Every structure is written in structure tokens, then in C-alpha cells.
């Protein structure tokens, strides 16, 4: 289905607000493959032990390129959030609940909160990752992560 869509629709790099996720396009394709399996992962430096976020191809602490995929802790806590009702870009529908989430391994991640109304969200709430589908690119289906409240 995704490939079919990708073939029919021409793909324009400059209009794509989403990351390119496939093996042909990025060296961190495993992040998105893992995400498709429901695993939220990142890279850890084998040399100095630094946990990278976002995942990149060299360690910014020691410049080593010996990195391994690790699972992120299952839950994080909301440090701050806001409800973005204005200044919303083409392709997005307000309101967007944007949050800063701190994980117990020291990683801070920004992402939207799904499946909640703004009144249900507060600072300190525990959240977990939810995987969502986004439009395909030239190489097929794509996913992204967002957060949902732990019930």
C-alpha cells in the first residue's frame, strides 16, 4: 500500500517536513525500523558510554563512531508542555500539545502528546511512546513517535 502510494505521488524533498527514514536515505534507519516494531531506541557510544539523543552517526562527546542501539526507558516525565493553537505550519492541525519529556537515563525528548485533551495534561505526568503513521516518502511507509499519558 505504502509503496504504491509512493509510486503514484511524486516526492519533493523541499516540501517534506518529516525525516527520511529508509535504508536508502539514512544511516540511522534502524531507529525507524525499531519504532515500527514498537521499540523506542537510541544510540549509545561503545567507547565512552554517552547516550546520544537524537541518534546521529558519531558520538558528540568523544567523536567515536562505534555506536550501538539501546532501548530507551519505557516511561518519561513531562518537564513542560504547551498547547500550540497558533503559528501552526502547513500540514498540521491545531491544537498541538507539545511537550518536553525527561527520561530516567538523562535523555530529554521533545514531542507531541496524542490522545489527550489539554486539560488532562500536567507537568510531572508520566508518558510512554506511541507510534503513529505519517505520509510515505520516495521509499515507502513511514512512522514517527509521539507520547501518550500512562493510564
Amino acid at each position, binding site marked *: 500500500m505504502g509503496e504504491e502510494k509512493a509510486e503514484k505521488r511524486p516526492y519533493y524533498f523541499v516540501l517534506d*517536513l*518529516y*525525516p527520511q527514514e529508509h535504508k536508502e536515505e539514512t544511516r540511522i534507519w534502524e531507529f525507524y525500523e525499531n519504532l515500527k516494531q514498537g521499540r523506542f531506541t537510541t544510540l549509545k557510544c561503545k567507547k565512552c558510554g554517552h547516550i546520544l*539523543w*537524537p541518534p546521529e552517526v558519531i558520538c558528540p562527546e568523544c567523536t567515536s563512531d562505534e555506536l550501538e542501539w539501546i532501548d530507551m526507558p519505557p516511561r518519561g516525565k513531562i*518537564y*513542560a*508542555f*504547551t*498547547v*500550540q*493553537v*497558533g*503559528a*501552526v*505550519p*502547513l*500540514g*498540521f492541525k491545531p491544537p*498541538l500539545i*507539545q511537550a*518536553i519529556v525527561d527520561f530516567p537515563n*538523562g535523555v*530529554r*525528548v*521533545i*514531542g*507531541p502528546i496524542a490522545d489527550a485533551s489539554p486539560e488532562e495534561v500536567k*507537568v510531572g505526568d508520566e508518558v510512554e511512546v506511541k507510534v503513529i503513521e*505519517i505520509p510515505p516518502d520516495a521509499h515507502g511507509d513511514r512512522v*514517527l513517535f*509521539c507520547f501518550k499519558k500512562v493510564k
Partner: protein
Amino acid sequence: MRKVVMVAGGVNKWGRRAANFRQLAAEAAKACFDSNPNIDHKEIDGFILATTYAERTGVQVHPAPFIAQIIGLQPKKLYMRVENQCGSGTTAIRTAWWAIASGYVDMVMCLGVEKLMIPVHEEIFLNAASAMDHDWEGCFGLTPPAAFAMAAQAHMRKFGTTEEQMAMVSVKNHRHAMKTPYAHHYERYKKHGPVTLETALKSRMIAYPLKLFDCSTNTDGAAACILASEEKAKELTDKPVYLIGTSQVCLHGSWQKATYEWWEWPALRLAARQAYEMAGIKPEDVDVAEIHDCFTISEIIEYEELGWCEKGQGGKFIEEGLSDYGGKVVVNPRGGLIACGHPFAATGIAQAYEIFLQLRGEAGERQVKDAKIGLNHNLSGLGEHHIIIYKRGFD
């Protein structure tokens, strides 16, 4: 190292302009040339263009040579385009500074231009999102208002800063812009009078706690200035304004790399310390300042990190009128990004030009009495700050 002097400057009319980015640039260049008839523009041997969205609204990749050509420059020593989003203008001036100080070039024009106003409103914010981390922030539709809203909440939670205090920054800057004819909102004041606290507080929500009047205004605009070596400047002006200190700090680009508390801005604290040290001055020596009020909360946190008040007292600083005429330091006398508008790469140069006018005693109704030292600050994100300090070079 040679001393460097600002010898000319100019700004065009900002707003939703029926003009493209080339024409905006040409208007600012002409205003700058006209400001100093001693300058023969054919003698300008360096040109630095600052622009962020040339590729997106121009639509022009490789814009510097085309703008140089349009304004009649044929630089023989250097020409380039610089881009650091909202800090692009300041980056251009710093770059020109080093080129002149080193002895390589005698006179450089810096020109900042931005075409932001395009027909589809949501595309303006697509462009805004494109300057966030594409793969890890922009992909969520995150734009600066939401990011700064979270910094504002952190500051409110920690120090009790209020929405009223934030609105006071907007009211002050709009009041200042009533004397700035090129400001985006200038015509609004003629019709509706000054922006009141009530208007600001009741304006529509953008991202809590930031409302429309807490935000800088998207606008089309350009600004230009000319820097020269001290020796060259003697031929061109008897009212030199010296560049005496600068700093630039980039601790991170992505917002989520700010793993510290968002009510503190360590990159700015470091930048401030470095700039004051280079200039050989203290925070209290600054008479007039043009700082980056992209949002009201930014100006409040900047009072603190620039050393004009204690950490956490920024809200009180505006409330007590200490950043206004008659206070400790006059902040954003032209009306800031909130009231003049914020054509990203033009902003830093327009701010520098305001400091230039203030230090020369040529700011008219906006004049800060006997201003000797001026500070210009821009930011391009929580972790990216740019500062230039200027000093009057005559008595």
C-alpha cells in the same frame, strides 16, 4: 588588530510589502548610502548578505552576488552570504569586523533582508518550522512560539513571573515604536492609539502563556550598515561609532539539547560575560540596548542573563520601569521585534543601526539622553546567542 567603526546605516519600510526580496534589499541599501554622502559605493570592497529564507521565499539560492549587482557593488576583496537564522544580521557585522580588523579589507557593507509575508499563512509557519531541527522537532510542527512558551512556563513556575509582566514588555515596546515610522505596526497606532495592557492580555492565544501580543511580528524588511577601518572612517565621518566588544556562543541547536532548566539561559550568560570582558565594561555601563524580544519572556530572561538584575527578577525589572526611559537601561527604544516586526536576518542590522543613531545623538524623538555605550543582542535558539557592544567615539 585595527579598530573598526560603523560609518553609515539605513532601514526600509517594514510591513506586508508589495515588493520582493531583491527590492527590499535595494531600498535598505539606498537608505544606507544616502545616510553618508561621503561614501562612494564603488569603493566598498566587501559585501556580506544576511538572509535566512532566500531559498524559500526568494526563491533564490546563492543570493549574495545578485543583491550586490542590484545595488551597484562590485566587491574586490570579499563577498558572501551568512545565515544564522535570527542572528544572521549580527553574524554579518561580526564577520565584517574581523575582515576589517585583520587589515584585509577597508570598507564592508552588511545587508540583512527577509521576505516573510507570503500568501498562504500556514506556509509562513512551515518556514518557521524549517528552522527548527528538521528530523526531531520540525517534524512535529513545533515552531518557536511553542518552544518559548515552555521556557516562559518554566520561568513562571520557578520565579512567579506573571502574564501581566510579560504583557508590560509588549506595551513598552509598542509605545516605543510609536516614534519609529518604519515599524510594522506604526500605522496601527495612528488608527488605534497605543497598545494597552488590556489589549495585550486579551489578545488571542498562540501557545500558553504566549498570546499574539507576546510574539514578535512576521514582516518583510531590510536593513544595511557600512563598517570601515578607523583610518578609512576618518575620511567618512566625524562622528565615529566604535565596535568594542562581541561574543557568539552556540551550546546547541536543537531545543531538546537544553537539558538544563529552561528558566536559565547559560549560553547567553556566557556570551554576556565574554562581550563585557572584551569591551572592558560592566553591565551597568550600558546606556541603551537593542535585545532580542522575539517573545516577551525572552526580553525578561535577557535582563537577567545580561546582568541588569538578579536571576528571577526580570518580571520585576519591567514592572518597575527599569528597562524604559528614566530607568537603568533603555531597552529596545525603536520598539523591538515585537513592534517593529522581525524580518529575521534584517533584525540584527536594524538594531545595530538604532544603536548607531542613539550613540551619535541622531535618534530624534527616541533619543536616549547622552547615550555613550550601546549593546545589541540576538538569539537563534535557546543555546545560540550573539552580542555586539558599541561605543561613541567622539564628545
